[in-house]
């Protein structure tokens, strides 16, 4: 029984992962709002897009340079592991993970891919009024229109992934009694002692590395948007 297990606190998410997560949500809300408003707000939609692209780039790099559970190597599981975990989900006794579980890992990749697609197509998109992405000048109008279509359709894929993500979080809360929302704020999960003991000492993230990676992501987006060369 879960009640017999001794639960201990363990650090799951480093600060950069948490800041990335909540900042991304705020920015996506702003992006939907500015796109729906249109008119002069489109200028801010572009700025918001650059910020989202910076965050995505940061998260991709952080997946290699971050703390243990921020790394892709920690949570990208093979399809058979994901399938086994999916089957076990029906029971509340399914396995615990400090970082992402095998299905959650795939969800992270799917969301990052969809977000990257959204940000990149946005760079080349146009609204047929007075706004176009900073790289739209490099391609034909026809291709830019196709990018715009993709930008619009992918929004629904992104929304569907987000809904699935939230449903999964509530499933964990209601069925497995795991409060993942709180963990994403505090960085701390409460898990059975043996799960924590089995995972060994986690590698801590360096705030300096985070700063360097963030600066690199900013510089890359700046160069892409401004194209000073």
């Amino acid at each position, binding site marked *: 029984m879960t009640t017999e297990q001794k639960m201990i606190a363990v650090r799951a998410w480093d600060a950069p992962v948490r800041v990335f997560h909540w900042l991304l949500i705020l920015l996506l809300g702003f992006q939907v709002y500015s796109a729906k408003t*249109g008119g002069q707000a489109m200028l801010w939609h572009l700025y918001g897009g650059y910020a989202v692209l910076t965050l995505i780039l940061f998260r991709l790099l952080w997946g290699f340079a971050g703390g243990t559970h921020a790394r892709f190597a920690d949570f990208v599981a093979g399809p058979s592991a994901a399938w086994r975990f999916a089957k076990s989900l029906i029971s509340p006794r399914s396995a615990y993970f400090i970082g992402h579980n095998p299905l959650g890992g795939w969800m992270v990749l799917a969301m990052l891919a969809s977000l990257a697609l959204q940000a990149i197509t946005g760079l080349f998109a146009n609204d047929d*009024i007075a706004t176009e992405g900073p790289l739209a000048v490099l391609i034909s109008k026809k291709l830019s229109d196709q990018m715009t279509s993709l930008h619009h359709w992918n929004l629904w894929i992104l929304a569907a992934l987000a809904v699935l993500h939230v449903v999964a979080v509530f499933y964990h809360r209601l069925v497995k009694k795991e409060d993942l929302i709180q963990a994403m704020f505090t960085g701390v999960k409460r898990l059975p002692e043996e799960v924590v003991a089995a995972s060994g000492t986690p590698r801590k993230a360096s705030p300096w590395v985070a700063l360097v990676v963030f600066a690199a992501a900013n510089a890359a987006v700046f160069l892409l948007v401004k194209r000073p060369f």
Partner: protein
Amino acid sequence: MNIGKSMMLATVGFGLAAGIAYEAAAQVKPEVLVKQRKAAMTLIAKYIGPVGAMVQGKIPYDAAVVARNASFAEALSKMPWDGFETSTQNFKETRAKPEIYSNSAKFNAASDSMQTEIGKLAAAARSGDQNAVKAAFGGVGKTCKACHDDFRND
């Protein structure tokens, strides 16, 4: 000139007049109508675009260009609408949604709003008031977008 000759001339003249009237009433082919409204929209975007870039500070503000472009756009804003005849409904190469014809009241209101907003932009541009141009431009962008969202396929 005898009676017979003038009668003949009158008949030919009448016939020609009738022919011209018939030509005017004859239907313009759907592909021409679609081309017409796309051309009008393309030109509107072409002349509005630089005004937007100036309002957003991407390129230096040039009051003379703004005034000229806005007056072009004002005239053009009246031109797409008679291209949306029902004969174009089944024409493939258009992103026009069927709602244009099933909800024509709303579509007409949208087209009126677009002409009003571009008219305001042209008036602001004539006045030379840069802030008024900026405000009016926001309205133009919104009316374009509202109609595209409702009546144009992605």
